[in-house]
Structure formats: structure tokens, C-alpha cells
């Protein structure tokens, strides 16, 4: 009991994660808390039991002979098969739910965000996950990864940029492909990662929330300068982003 309460406290109060900057980050943190709580309870429980046995049942100097001959206990063994199975099942279903809320379970095949993108999308978080009413509002951006940089192309304004500028609160859909080797697009503050693969376009949809500058990190070994392959995502308020957009747009396309 105490253990469970302690575990809950640890789960609630110890924060090991960076700030949240996208809609799905708080959902992720919820999952993290649950896993952290269960993990702490299990770890402390098992290690506690181990240390207790080592102390309580250590061989004193006056003792010779063996311990008690217990070879097994079926009910007990069934118990500790069943309990982890239930816990694991719960965790699995729960994380499925979380993933669903993050949009991950939307099939990629039914991707109709934009008639031009009829090509096959191989993986990622589908743009179909964007709230129905928001789909028309989603901002498409093409991401090209190469040794050792990311390039962002905004089809709407034909902007090419080395930094990703996105407006807070608007859904974004990245269409990603690599030129040479596999890279990965990771923004820790968004809690999102997707490999960027040569020959297999992938997609990543998210909605940034908190304005600020966050690192974009390449997370897949891609060569000698892999560690230096970083960029920045700038999340701005809508006005600031509009200003950035119109000062960079080559075509004078209306701001979609």
C-alpha cells in the first residue's frame, strides 16, 4: 500500500522530461507518469524484497546446514504469472489508447489531405489524424534530410528554409524524405520522432502549442557528422509567423 502510494507520488512529482510544446506532448507525459509509477512500484518492491531476503536470511556464523526445502508453490506461481499479465495487458491497452489520441492509429493509406499527394506514404503519424474541421487548415511542409542537414520547403509560399518555422496552434503535416541515408526527425519537446528514409516518404503530423525555439535532432546514425546534424524549430504566435512567412514567401500566395 505504502509502496503504491510512494510510487504514485514519485510518478506525479518527479519530472524527468523537457517542456511540452505540442498537443501530443501532455498526452505523452500522461503515459510516462503511469509507466513511471508502475515501474517505480515494481522496482522498489522487487529490490526491497531482495534486500530484505539477503539480510533476513543471510547465513549467520553459527549456522550450518541448509534452508527449508520448498520446491515450488503452484498458487503462488500462478499468482505471479497472472498479475504481471494483467498489468502488461493494461499497459498495452492504455498505451494503445494514448497512441490513438496522438493520431498514430489512423491508417496512412487513407490519406486525402491533398490531391497532389497521391504517392505512397510509408509510415509516420498520418495527416488523417488532424481533427476533421482542421484538415483544410493544416500547413503542409516538405522536409528533405541529407548528410548533414534538414531542409524545409513550404509549398504554399515556395519558401526554402534551414529552420522550421511553425505557427502555434495550427496543425502541421510534414512530408519527409531523405536524399542519401536514413535520418530521423526528432523534436524532444514535441515527443515526436520519425525516421526520414531515402526512397520511402514518411509523414508526421502534429500541432505545436508553446512558442519558443526547440532543437530538431537527427536521431539515426547517418555518418561522421551525425552528432552535428541539428536544426531548430521556431514555434511562433500566429502574427509573428505570418510576418515571417510573408517576408520570405517567393510567390505571393494568399496565406492558406
Amino acid at each position, binding site marked *: 500500500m505504502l509502496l503504491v502510494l510512494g510510487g504514485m507520488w514519485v510518478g506525479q512529482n518527479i519530472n524527468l522530461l*523537457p517542456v511540452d510544446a505540442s498537443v501530443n506532448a501532455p498526452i*505523452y507525459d500522461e*503515459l*510516462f507518469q503511469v*509507466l513511471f509509477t508502475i*515501474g517505480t512500484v*515494481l522496482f522498489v518492491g*522487487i529490490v526491497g524484497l*531482495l534486500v530484505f*531476503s*539477503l539480510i533476513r*536470511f*543471510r*547465513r549467520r556464523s553459527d549456522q*550450518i*546446514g*541448509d*534452508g*527449508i*526445502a*520448498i*520446491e*515450488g508453490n503452484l498458487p503462488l*506461481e500462478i499468482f505471479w*504469472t497472472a498479475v*504481471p*499479465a494483467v498489468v*502488461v*495487458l493494461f*499497459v*498495452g491497452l492504455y*498505451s494503445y489508447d*494514448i*497512441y490513438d489520441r*496522438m493520431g*498514430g492509429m489512423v*491508417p*496512412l493509406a487513407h490519406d486525402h489531405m491533398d490531391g497532389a499527394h497521391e504517392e505512397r506514404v510509408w*509510415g509516420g503519424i498520418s495527416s488523417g489524424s488532424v481533427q476533421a474541421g482542421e484538415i483544410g487548415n493544416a500547413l503542409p511542409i516538405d522536409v528533405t534530410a541529407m548528410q548533414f542537414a534538414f531542409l524545409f520547403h513550404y509549398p504554399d509560399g515556395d519558401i526554402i528554409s534551414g529552420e522550421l518555422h511553425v505557427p502555434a496552434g495550427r496543425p502541421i503535416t510534414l512530408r519527409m524524405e531523405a536524399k*542519401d*541515408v*536514413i535520418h530521423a526527425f526528432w523534436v*524532444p519537446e514535441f515527443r*515526436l520522432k*520519425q*525516421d526520414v528514409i*531515402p*526512397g*520511402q516518404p*514518411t509523414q508526421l503530423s502534429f500541432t505545436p502549442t508553446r512558442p519558443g525555439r526547440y*532543437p530538431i*535532432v537527427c*536521431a*539515426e*546514425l547517418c*555518418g*561522421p557528422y*551525425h*552528432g*552535428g546534424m541539428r536544426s531548430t524549430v521556431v514555434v511562433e504566435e500566429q502574427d509573428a509567423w505570418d510576418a515571417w512567412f510573408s517576408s520570405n514567401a517567393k510567390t505571393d500566395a494568399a496565406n492558406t
Partner: protein
Amino acid sequence: MTIALQPETGTERPPRLQPTGWLRYFSFSVDHKVIGLQYLVCGFLFYLIGGALAGAIRTELASPVADFMPRDVYNQVLTLHGTVMIFLWIVPVVNGAFGNYLIPFYVGARDMAFPRLNAVAFWLIPPAGLLLISSYFLTGAAQSGWTAYPPLSITTPATGQIIWILSVLLLGGSSIFGGINFIATILKLRRPGLKLMQLPMYCWAMLGTSILVVLSTPVLAGTLVLLSFDIVAHTGFFNPTLGGNVVVYQHLFWFYSHPAVYIMVLPAFGLVSEILPVHARKPLFGYTTMVYSIMAIVGLGLIVWAHHMFTSGTPPWMRLFFTIATAFIAVPTGIKFFNWLATLWGGRISLNSAMLFSCGFIVNFVLGGITGVALAQVPFDIHVHDTYFVVAHFHYIVFGGSVFVIFASIYHWYPKFTGRMLNEHLGRLHFALTFIGFNLCFGPQHWLGLNGMPRRVAEYDPQFTLINQISSVGALLMAISTLPFLWNVIQSAFAGQRAGDNPWNALTPEWLTSSPPPVENWVGEAPLVEEPYGFGIPAEAFDLAAASGRDLWSSGK
């Protein structure tokens, strides 16, 4: 092809025409004990090399800029470190070394089923290892990590990568030969009267492991052959510019390499199951469920590979399936841990080095298992995949798990190997340094990964400097911890306290002969050990007179 027979001299128990004395450890010996020790010592030498490489990595990471070595050299060091530690240290030692030494004893045989093949399997290892390491000096080693994902592995310098493939193929071959030998020995070479369910648990672990080896290693071999075609013959299996598919490589690779993690840890589970009962003076708890859980792990272990590919563009249904399958592996694994705890409960535990390392293993592995289950959850993994969190996870498993067990086993079986005891004080010092150093090194890496440090980088965001330095200090401690161990092992070989045949009063068959054992394991017939864990006194009759289980042995027919 045909069965070539060595000329034998006509004595009672004909000795083979092979060197005796220390020279035999450098020979093509077919004695399973010699081969076992060859594996052990050879593996340990490679461990020192792999450790030096790790030291180089942690030195580089003590500062956030790439200042200690050139970046491409860093990637070579990283690749060599992973490959050496997995294929030349853990796999050969937990399987080859202890398997060869112990399994024939456990089944009551005088050698492995195919002694010649056994020696061949061992002698593939040193050349393969030297080849791998020499590539660093000759042409530059492979730079694409131990996973060798294309297209990186196709576009980095070809010679190093080809040598890497060759040496991994040789090591894979060695591993397959070993696996065939273990399966045949355990299933076919048992002493008459010895039933499967009476075998010591390590046999079951090795049976399960060998099944995994036989089923999964060939797939890796085939895949690497295809990869080498891509490199030298310009085919396009995994080369997207020629229409290939890079993700197929990942599937094939992990079809081997997830089972490979069980190839590294199942034997360790088996070894711990041998060590704990002896030093706790209690029967192994739940023998039958242990056996079933090993087999469940083998079965599940073959169908979880894509949990390494949650960000590789796998379709949603695949993610869901592999999440559930992976999470369920925790159930049989959990059973084993609870059984071990129950084995300790109510025992008369000697807190010696073997026991301490085994308990260190339990602590570390439980943590690694918990992070493993978390990683199996797709949404969780999407954030931490390919970060230092994963690095922490698998080092808790392979170092905190397998390597701790290797040390526990050395403390436990050293008297058997040499007839002398290891020094306990040095052993405990070794344990303390390793345990603290290990946790200091890898514990903080969880945080690094959660907060944005990817793996396999030579440079990083300066905000992570302090934690990385702590981690490097831990690595230094671990390096230092090998010194008392080395000294202990060498010094005790000459001047250690004499052990006698059975210093632990153990009941498994390898202790029912002299230490070190004679060439064919037993003078006279092999004992029939029906209760390898027959320790202890029934709860009602707690009789101190029955000090050891010697009366429980039934030898002969």
C-alpha cells in the same frame, strides 16, 4: 565426409594424441573443458579490447565537442565496440564457455556430441576477431554501427564494411555450430536414466538459446550476404537509388538481433539458476514454471523484432502487434525473477562474491526489464527511440544482466576450473566497484535520452555536459574494477587457497568429480543426479545433522 578415426594408443582409457599441460589451451583440443576455457579466456581478452574502445567513447563524450578523435574514427570505435562486445564477448562466453564446460557434466556425458565440430566452432572465433580488429589498422573499420543499416553501410568505405560482414559471418557460423552441438548433446547424449525434467536449469536455458541460434542466425547470415552484394556487386536489395528497400534489411536484421539479445541473456538466466540455490542452500523454486517460461521466451522472442522499428515507417497494425507481443515477454521473464526471489526466501544465504554478483544482476535486470516494457509501448518509444535512453536500457540488460552473471559464474566455477578458490575480499571489492561504476555510468543516461540526447553521437548539446561527465566517471570506475579481478584470477591460480573437490557442497554433477576434473570427466561411471537442487531439510524435520545433501546423491544405476 567419412568418419576419420584418430590413431589411438592402446592404454586403458586412451588419451588423445594431443598436448597436455598448459599447451593444450592453445591447441585444437577436442576436450569440452579445454574448449570451454578457451572460449572464456579468449572472450575475456576481447572484453578488454571492447572495454578499451568503450573507454575511448566515454573520453570523447566527457566534453560536448568532438575533440578527442576524428568523427569518422569515433564511428569506427563505436561500431567495433558494439560488435566486439556482442559477438566476441557475451555470446561466446555465456554460450560457448560455460555451455561447453558445463553441459556435458549436466547430461552425464564425457564430451559434447560433436567434439571436432566443437573445436572448429571455437577456432573460428580468434581469426574472426583478429580480422575485425585488424580492419581498423589496415583500412579503417566499418562505421555504420553494429546494426550496419543500409544505405549508410553501403555508402561508407567499402573495405571496412566487407571485413565486418566477413567476420560476423564467421562468428555466426561458429555460433550455429555451437548451437547444433548443444541441441544434440542435451537431447541425445543424456546418460541413461536421466530424464529431461531432471536436468539442471542451465541445460534448458541452453536448449532454448540454441533453438534461437539455429533459427535466427542463418537469417542474419543471408541478409549480410545480400548486403555485401549491394556493396561489391552493385545490386540494389537495400539500395534505394537502385529501387531497393532499406526497411526490409531492418526486418531481417532484427529477426536475428532481437533473438540475439535472448541468446545473450537466456544462458545467463540459466547460470543464475545454478548459482542461487547453491549459495542460498535451497532448492530452485518452481522448476517446472522456469522450464515453461524459458520456452515461452523462445517462442515470443521470435515474434517481437519490429519493436526496434517503431519509427522506421511501419504500418499501424504492425506496431500494435509488436507492442503486445513484446510486452507479453515480460510475463515469463517476470516468472523467473519471482522464482529466484522465492529461492532466496528462507534460505541460508552466503553473501559471497558469486551471490553478490547474482543479486546485482537481479537488480540491474529488473530495471532494464521495466524500461524494456516501457520501450515496447509505441507512443513511449517514439520519443526515446535511438536515444541514450535505449543505450541505458540495453546496457542494464547486457552489462547489468549478462556481464554480471559472467562474473558471478567465474566466482562460482573458478574452483572447479582450477582447484583453487578466488580471494573473497578482492571479489567483494570487484563487485562494489563494478556495481557502483555501472549504475553511475548508465543510470543517468536514462535522463539524457528523455531530454534530447540521441545515441551514437560524438558531440552533443552543452546542457548535457555534467551528466555525461558523471557517466564517464562511472565508466572509469568500471575500468578500475577489472584490476582487482584480474589480479585475483591470476594470483589465485598459483597461490589461491585449495578448494577441494566441492567447496560449495553443490549437488550438480560437475561438482561430483575432482577439481579440476579428469580428461573424461569422471573416473568410472557418470553419477546419475536426479535432484540437482535437492538442498534443504523438509520444513518439519529441520535436522542440522544433514549438513550437506551428499546423502541425496544416488550414483550408479
